[in-house]
């Protein structure tokens, strides 16, 4: 067993010496101010490294407390949530279910009508989103190919908010769907669709985490809900929700040309 004593047993540290070249370099750097510049630069980097994440955390909490937009992430699809039926089976539905608009109302509520290609999705999801408080929104980016009404023009790219998830009475047997789920599941990047939407005013608000926040914080434009206001491409045509007599016909698939004819007819009738 080696008995370790002070100094002599630890003589291995003698191997570490500052040679004359290093001493001279340190001295020159200090006296010329170079060392000071390097030191200050390191300190600034250190401050930035420490302060930037701290600022990000503070900003995150400020946004949370002020009821701002919690998360916006990108995705290939619209967000679609299907709730287990049991969650609502013994609960009074406190949400009012909007009456489907007539064709005339539908067109008067749509101050922008475009045809375009979906290029991106962003989701707005509250951090405290739960199964019983599932409100979330999808912002779809559309590259406009044709504009029938409104201030957008072909070639523009614009964000439109889809108000999924809207709580409401679903229509299928095994789940409690949003009103728009059946349309939302069809949307994906690269898909063509007609969008009937309106420009948000400063007084428009959307519910998020129990707070009503200005809709304009999320997007400039929004559809009122998915069915009818979004007319996506399917294998057989486009899901246009009115027949020639102006009646609601959910699930009707029309060729692109017929949808355009219906749009033009309604716009002519209104003008």
């Amino acid at each position, binding site marked *: *067993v080696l008995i370790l004593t002070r100094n002599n047993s630890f003589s291995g540290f003698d191997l570490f010496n500052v040679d004359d070249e290093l001493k001279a370099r340190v001295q020159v750097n200090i*006296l010329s101010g170079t060392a000071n510049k390097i030191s200050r630069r390191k300190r600034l980097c250190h401050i930035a490294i420490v302060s930037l994440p701290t600022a990000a955390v503070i900003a995150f909490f400020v946004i949370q407390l002020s009821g701002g937009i919690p998360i916006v992430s990108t995705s290939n699809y619209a967000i679609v949530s299907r709730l287990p039926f049991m969650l609502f089976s013994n609960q009074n539905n406190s949400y009012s279910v909007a009456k489907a608009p007539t064709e005339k109302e539908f067109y008067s509520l749509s101050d922008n009508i475009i045809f375009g290609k979906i290029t991106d999705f962003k989701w707005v999801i509250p951090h405290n989103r739960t199964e019983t408080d599932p409100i979330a929104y999808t912002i779809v980016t559309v590259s406009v190919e044709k504009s029938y009404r409104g201030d957008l023009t072909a070639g523009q790219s614009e964000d439109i908010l889809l108000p999924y998830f809207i709580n409401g009475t679903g229509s299928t047997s095994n789940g409690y769907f949003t009103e728009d789920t059946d349309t939302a599941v069809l949307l994906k990047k690269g898909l063509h669709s007609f969008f009937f939407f309106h420009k948000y005013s400063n007084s428009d608000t959307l519910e998020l985490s129990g707070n009503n926040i200005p809709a304009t914080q999320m997007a400039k434009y929004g559809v009122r809900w998915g069915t009818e206001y979004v007319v996506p491409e399917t294998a057989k045509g486009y899901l246009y929700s009115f027949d020639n007599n102006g009646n609601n016909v959910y699930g009707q698939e029309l060729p692109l040309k017929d949808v355009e004819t219906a749009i033009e007819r309604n716009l002519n009738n209104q003008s």
Partner: protein
Amino acid sequence: VEDAKCEHDAFLSHMLEKHANTVYRIAVVYTKNLSDAEDVVQEVFLRLYQSNNKFDNDEHVRAWLIRVTCNYCKSLLRSPWRRRVSTADLIAVAEDNPNSFSLVQAVLALPQKYRGSIYLFYYEGYSTAEIAHILHQKEATVRTHLARGRALLKTNFVGGADFDTQ
């Protein structure tokens, strides 16, 4: 003013000559990296040059340098963006001096909080009270660090080791 600057420059030169090795070795003990240790030497002597401290004597300067070195190394090690330590240069030293380096390696393998106390006690020859004063720690803490460091060295040192703790 010119005379005072010359005197200050001469003081730096003198201190570098006298204490650079101590600062460098402590920096090696903490950072385990020779190029980091060189940076520490420059930073610590820059702080000495810029400080307005009035030192009573040479021992006072030495204690100040050791404290600044330890603190600076600790802050360097805390930085999340510090580059990954390369031990290549230390390995090169070890290969050239296999006998005398084995204990150094064992000390460097200790947890950071024990390394400083072990080095200052066994190599620099400071008492526990002096180490406590230099590092601004309680003497009991220094004793604990020494005891735990020794215990780990006994376990880890190849061939076994025991200590003359006087």
